[in-house]
């Protein structure tokens, strides 16, 4: 068996990737017991004195929760910060769309929560594929975030008594989620944005909206700045700094149909990858179970319906295939509440990867509902009966309204139709414990990195990670890096490296414009999305992935021969912007498939058809795959570097939610 396996691996290696066993990756995890590691780092880290901080320049790309909170916190300390975002205001970054909540270990509910339990839930939720020390720190720093957000004016839900309220999210058995109606992301982002704008007003932050980073400048092996394009004028600019922080979010929009904003992209991290930064587990994508189903080919996105709805909504499909009756006409005994049936302990609050696969299993088996038979029901009938319509309206009113606007269906009367959709990138740039990439001076925070969520992120941990990285970790680890530069001046943007990077960006833009073929960017993007959904989505297989790699290669070939973009590069040109992102998506898509192919096991959201338990659950192979897959860029054949995952405190077990 083992020898067979190694033969298959060798075959795959020669086909699509190679392994670098000598590359040394230092995760920089501090010594000492788990609960003292962060203290240890903070007690021993280097500092920059208040008078010297203004001499250091920091670039932060992306102004969502991670970017805005990091920029504000660093500027408050006295550093000079420049922020960049492609949106027309920092406040519009996609953190704004997060609905349900943010987790924090306050144990206000006295229901058995602790830092250790939160750490364990998150590690287990991620199917034991994250670094223990990082995850522990996330739980440890979570409590103060709530204090900070409240002080900024974030209107979290409260009880009549005035105390903060909580609810539950998937994959846990305590109530540790804080929420602000169904707009928690918006309110947390406004808090961070306002903190950032305060520093703009004070002259400590220079904010560049409508600027997109198109390259990372690396000199002497260190990050020295970026090339960014002014999206209103088309002008390229060189921006130099002592350190560059990428807080550019996830790239789930690679699937074309996703819950992400139209502009979300992987360009910044991919261009950094091409300059030497390692990616980690790029194929680990969260497909969110509760989104609006696709209703036609015109569709540009799939709207998320918050996981919080699963606190009160029950998910079901008819027991009969090709059911044609309206849901309210289907009697109770003819309904299959499949999550409650399969996972009685967690029921409708089973984790996202498991809930999505369970939905796909029912849909593929012919029990799907809706016009395209691609959905399941999320029903509030029992909750409305037990709690009253007004209570449900108060909890979820804006979500019901949103559902009504999009579908013209009243979900108080008839169950919602929901379906899984691409939502979150667990994978991203590889970072060490200090959130630094393998390029000194380049940091990655929030969804842009691979750090805390392993192979599956728990609901309401995404806002948390973005905030903890930005407010509490980077403001300690970045100064630790800067202090070692011992007063070096700001790098010059007139250097050769800046010149070459700008020239290359310019050339790649011109190249896209000169193709003048017959297909639009969106058309290519839709095709790529379909390949990835079918073959590198909820379920993957060796054959499917190999086909996908071939198909993406062909699509990439056609892209560079048959793309059509109107207009010029030295003006506002939306199609050119999109083309650059899709060019990168094609390469990212291929690396995702290679990553998924190389991991010959199932874990979390990465479900390889060949590796499942008799009950159809993900079957890990800790003996061979207890490592983070890190990738060195190569357009044809990326190189795999393994960071072994060592578990000193917990013992990985089979993830059980029954």
């Amino acid at each position, binding site marked *: 068996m083992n020898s067979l396996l190694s033969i298959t691996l060798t075959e795959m290696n020669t086909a699509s990737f190679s392994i670098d066993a000598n590359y040394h990756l230092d995760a920089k995890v501090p010594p000492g017991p788990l609960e003292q590691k962060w203290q240890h780092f903070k007690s021993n880290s280097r500092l920059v004195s208040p008078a010297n901080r203004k001499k250091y320049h920091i670039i932060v790309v992306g102004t969502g929760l991670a970017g805005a909170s990091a920029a504000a916190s660093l500027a408050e300390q006295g550093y000079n910060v420049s922020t960049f975002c492609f949106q027309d205001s920092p406040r519009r970054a*996609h953190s704004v769309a997060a609905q349900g909540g943010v987790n924090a270990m306050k144990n206000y509910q006295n229901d058995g929560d602790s830092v250790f339990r939160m750490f364990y839930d998150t590690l287990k939720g991620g199917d034991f594929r994250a670094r223990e020390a990082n995850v522990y720190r996330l739980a440890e720093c979570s409590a103060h975030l709530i204090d900070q957000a409240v002080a900024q004016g974030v209107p979290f839900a409260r009880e009549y008594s005035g105390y903060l309220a909580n609810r539950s999210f998937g994959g846990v058995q305590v109530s540790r989620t804080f929420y602000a109606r169904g707009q928690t992301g918006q309110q947390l982002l406004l808090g961070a944005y306002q903190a950032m704008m305060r520093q703009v007003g004070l002259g400590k932050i220079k904010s560049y909206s409508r600027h997109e980073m198109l390259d990372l400048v690396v000199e002497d092996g260190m990050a020295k700045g970026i090339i960014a394009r002014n999206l209103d004028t088309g002008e390229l600019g060189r921006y130099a700094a002592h350190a560059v922080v990428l807080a550019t979010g996830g790239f789930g929009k690679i699937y074309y149909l996703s819950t992400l904003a139209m502009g979300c992209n992987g360009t910044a991290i991919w261009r950094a990858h091409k300059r030497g930064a390692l990616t980690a587990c790029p194929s680990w994508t969260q497909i969110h179970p509760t989104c609006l189903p696709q209703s036609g080919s015109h569709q*540009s996105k799939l709207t998320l319906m918050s996981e919080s709805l699963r606190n009160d909504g029950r998910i079901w499909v008819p027991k009969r295939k090709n059911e044609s009756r309206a849901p309210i006409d289907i009697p109770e005994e003819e309904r299959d509440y499949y999550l409650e049936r399969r996972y009685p302990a967690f029921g409708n609050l089973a984790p996202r990867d498991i809930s999505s696969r369970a939905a796909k299993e029912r849909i593929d088996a012919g029990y799907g509902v809706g016009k395209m038979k691609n959905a399941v029901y999320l029903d509030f009938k029992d909750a409305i009966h037990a709690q009253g319509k007004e209570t449900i309206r108060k909890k979820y009113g804006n979500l019901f309204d949103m559902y009504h606007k999009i579908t013209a269906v009243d979900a108080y009367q008839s169950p919602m139709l929901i379906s899984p959709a691409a939502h979150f990138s667990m994978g991203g740039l590889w970072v060490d414990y200090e959130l630094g990439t393998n390029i000194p001076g380049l940091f990655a925070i929030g969804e842009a990195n691979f750090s805390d969520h392993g192979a599956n992120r728990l609901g309401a941990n995404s806002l948390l990670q973005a905030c903890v990285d930005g407010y509490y970790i980077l403001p300690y680890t970045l100064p630790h890096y800067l202090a070692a530069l011992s007063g070096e001046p700001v790098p010059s943007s007139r250097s050769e490296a800046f010149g070459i990077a700008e020239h290359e960006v310019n050339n790649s833009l011109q190249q896209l414009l000169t193709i003048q073929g017959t297909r639009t960017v969106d058309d290519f993007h839709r095709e790529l999305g379909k390949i990835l959904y079918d073959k590198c989505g909820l379920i993957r297989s060796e054959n499917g992935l190999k086909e996908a790699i071939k198909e993406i290669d062909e699509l990439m070939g056609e892209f560079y021969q048959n793309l059509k973009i109107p207009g010029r590069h030295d003006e506002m040109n939306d199609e050119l912007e999109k083309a650059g992102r899709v060019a990168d998506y094609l390469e990212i898509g291929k690396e995702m498939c290679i990553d998924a192919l190389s991991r010959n096991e199932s874990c979390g959201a990465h479900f390889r058809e060949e590796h499942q338990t008799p009950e159809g659950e993900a079957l890990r192979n800790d003996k061979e795959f207890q490592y983070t897959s890190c990738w060195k860029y190569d357009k044809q054949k990326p190189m795999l570097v393994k960071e072994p995952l060592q578990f000193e405190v917990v013992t990985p077990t089979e993830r059980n939610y029954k």
Partner: protein
Amino acid sequence: MMRFNLKIWRQQNPKDKGHFETYTVDEVTPDMSFLEMLDKLNEALIIEGKSPVAFDHDCREGICGQCGVMINGRAHGPLNQTSTCQLHMRSFIDGQEITIEPFRARAFPVKKDLKVDRSAFDQIIAKGGYISVNTGQAPEANHTLIPSEQVEEAFDAASCIGCGACVASCKNASAALFTAAKISHLHKLPQGQPEGPFRVKQLVKAMDDLGFGACSNTGACEVECPQGISISHIALMNRLYFKT
């Protein structure tokens, strides 16, 4: 399948005078969103070798505030409390002519076609639309109890998405609703009150300096606000301003 005649504002750049152009889109379905209808038009224009219509949009779920156009003279179109991206073609009549223009205001110069520059909103916030608390300073969150109703009132104001429909709908192009919503959000919370007088003075001055007009209480902004933010916040802003 539906068919529409579109009359769209085309303007090459901020200096161009601009003009209307008419287009026809067919094979529109009722469950297509308004922006997906524009996507369809743009894909056809690109294939024909013409310049697509530039419009702002991002999240397409009504929360980022980046989209927003005037549709038949109404900001965000015919439905109340609905942003442009959440509008669907079932809200229009087959064969109807639809006029699409940018949000117009002196403080919102047109950048291209339907895109306008709303950075003046960021500048207002930078003048004091915040609570001055550094990372790390905050006390334990449950130390200050805030009754649920009070938080909900603050939330009503805090839900502003910064789209600018209020400005575009106002005959004076006033930013009073946007500014008042921020003042009111922070004022209604105990932690926002110490800086209250400073904030209201700063924000009102910023709004005047940036070229927004005065509020004459017509209430048009409230009608068009996709979040349904009430003009009672403007009354509160005025009261607080006179107190300073």
